[in-house]
């Protein structure tokens, strides 16, 4: 066998596993899984004390290539992803040009092959140029390799266009991912509307801007039968709407980001207008963050995704009003969740595996998220005792825009393995 992971704790809810085992890998796939593999591997990893998961997938990243290679390239983004413990990333189409046609999809995939580390799953635009008017050539892009469609960052405002997109998506059984924001309600806002927008004198983004769009999507998903995934859910009322629709059998799923789980809008004041606390949707209230944490534990939230949004220092170091939205996330997400939610006993390891692996794989139909015999050997190995400090200067990403600089965390990736190959180790 090409590689054997010895005596790690294997956590794989797809097989109801949470026990110390050996994992044998051959030809890029899981070849054996047993308490003790007698055979010797060409290479072996002593995984005692470590936790072995089906490979983590970040289903919401921005790789910036083509167009803004100064902020991130596919190669640097993928290097950052594997350093953060991810074996795969799904990249949003808001590049320059927008990934709204086969050629751009093919370009992204060819650059990803050259980088040859993590899997890259392109997401195509819903509408041409993400202009919200006419449908992009979704079928062509699907043939080229997209796994979902989204106009992330430029949400489709026109209900009729969204309805058609949902209907059409059923042809290919791909999800429609929506960044829910009513742009008129949100207009001009840079921070959650509430106490902090008032005291800081910043224009607020009304939580209703997200909530009305989530409700709209739930209604359209019910009617069209499409699979709809709500990106970076941020308010407790949005979550309640998703949970209600799910109960009614609507094919609605959603994700939350580590920053919406762990930070609140107080961070904008505490950091004295640090633009690394500016993201869209904005950081919300303690009640919202608490509801989201309850949601990832209960299963109302399906996925943790980062919304990794690299911006160069030149772009981000501006007045709060003028700085772009977004923060990097792939290199900090897993450690943040381990330190703040897993180690304190809030989030069990099985849920961690579902949120980071099985569920994103299932939603995007990636045929991953399991370590069953014969599955692709995409594996994330975590060391729950690893101590680290978030140091943006050490990031593999080209960008440094994180609000977590200086955080001391315990728990993080030890090995990242893609198709049986160790692509990163601590």
């Amino acid at each position, binding site marked *: 066998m090409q590689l054997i992971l010895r005596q790690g704790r294997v956590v794989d809810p797809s097989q109801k596993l949470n026990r110390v085992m050996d994992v044998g890998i051959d030809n890029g796939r899981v070849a054996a899984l047993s308490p003790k593999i007698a055979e010797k591997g060409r290479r072996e990893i002593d995984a005692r004390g470590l936790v072995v998961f089906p490979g983590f997938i970040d289903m919401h990243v921005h790789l910036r290539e083509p167009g803004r290679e100064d902020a991130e390239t596919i190669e640097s983004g993928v290097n950052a992803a594997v350093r953060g413990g991810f074996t795969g990333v799904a990249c949003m189409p808001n590049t320059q040009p927008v990934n709204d046609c086969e050629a751009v999809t093919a370009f992204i995939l060819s650059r990803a092959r050259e980088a040859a580390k993590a899997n890259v799953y392109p997401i195509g635009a819903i509408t041409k140029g993400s202009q919200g008017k006419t449908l992009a050539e979704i079928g062509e892009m699907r043939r080229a390799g997209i796994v979902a469609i989204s106009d992330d960052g430029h949400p489709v405002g026109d209900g009729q266009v969204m309805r058609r997109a949902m209907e059409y998506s059923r042809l290919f059984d791909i999800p429609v991912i929506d960044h829910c924001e009513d742009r008129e309600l949100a*207009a001009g806002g840079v921070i959650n*509307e*509430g*106490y902090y*927008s*008032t*005291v*800081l*004198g*910043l*224009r*607020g983004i009304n939580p209703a801007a997200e909530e009305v769009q989530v409700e709209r999507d739930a209604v359209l998903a019910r009617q069209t039968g499409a699979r709809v995934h709500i990106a970076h859910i941020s308010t407790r009322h949005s979550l309640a709407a998703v949970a209600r629709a799910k109960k009614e059998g609507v094919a609605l799923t959603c994700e939350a980001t580590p920053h919406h789980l762990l930070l609140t809008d107080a961070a904008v*004041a*505490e*950091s*004295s*207008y640090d633009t690394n606390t500016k993201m869209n949707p904005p950081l919300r209230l303690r009640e919202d963050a608490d509801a989201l944490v309850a949601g990832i534990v209960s299963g109302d939230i399906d996925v943790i995704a980062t919304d990794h949004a690299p911006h160069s220092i*030149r772009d981000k*170091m*501006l*007045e*709060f*009003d*003028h700085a772009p939205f977004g923060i990097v996330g792939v290199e900090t997400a897993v450690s943040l969740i381990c330190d703040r939610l897993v180690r304190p006993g809030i989030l069990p390891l099985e849920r961690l595996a579902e949120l980071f692996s099985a569920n994103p794989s299932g939603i995007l139909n990636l045929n991953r998220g399991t370590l069953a015999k014969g599955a692709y050997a995409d594996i994330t190995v975590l060391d729950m005792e690893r101590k680290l400090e978030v140091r943006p200067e050490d990031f593999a990403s080209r960008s440094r825009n994180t609000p977590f600089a200086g955080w001391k965390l315990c728990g993080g990736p030890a090995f990242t393995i893609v198709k049986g190959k160790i692509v990163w180790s601590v």
Partner: protein
Amino acid sequence: MASLRHKDLLGIEQLSVGEIQLILDTAEALREVAARPVKKVPALRGKTVVNLFFEPSTRTRSSFELAEKRLSADILNFSASTSSVTKGETLLDTAYNLEAMSPDIIVIRHGSAGAPHLLGRKCKASIINAGDGMHEHPTQALLDGLTVRTIKGRLEGLKIAIIGDVAHSRVARSDTILFSRMGAEVCVCGPPTLIPWEYEKLGAKTTICLEEAMDGADVIMMLRVQHERQNEAFFPSAREYASLYGLTRERMRAAKKGAIVMHPGPINRGVEIESEVADAGCSVILDQVANGIAARMAVLYLLSGNAGLTPEKSR
């Protein structure tokens, strides 16, 4: 004389009761300079002050400039009518360029909240916030405090009504914090579309009923209605606004006898305030202008020598 221990003056928020008193006392002492035949003291001789204005401003800028001149500072005026972004140079690059000229104090007015904080973190010079977006305008609140204290003899226990476009007003925020911190009872009032969320936590009562705000008020502070700046409709028309929230002689009757009327200017006659009221004896709008110079002299004087201190966080 004592001094402030802050490097920057970013907002009233950062000031204690004692520090506000110190600034007001200092301003009172410096006010007599204006009555001298030679209106100049050497307090800031050899110090360089940069006036960095990213928003058009005549009154605040002239007031700062005169304050600086009366303290014998060397002055550099740097105004950019457009924002740093459209100019192509970032705010920080502009700041670094100015910093290279070794100023002691930078007075900044900017359309974006938090711009002075960004400068405060990156520059050795002391930063004075001369108005940042909808956030704070601390020297305006100090001159308002000075004006009220001079006329009423105290701030504690007074009823202050602040009326108008509270949502977009940095003056409202700074005044609310200053007056409530000094023991006055502050009530802000305006149409529901112009009262921001959770404003009460700043230390004020809020009401949408003008009569309620005016009832027994010692001080009525009218805010400028910035109809031209609002491309969103917060109220249907200036005419309707005037009929609902404009200050008229009739409405003044609800206030306490001897109540004073203030306005940060420039006033919109016939919109938020009727001409008759603006020009009446109860109006102290021009006292505010005179006190502005003294209050700014006090701040400049008390911060001079603080460049290089560790910058503080806003809250």
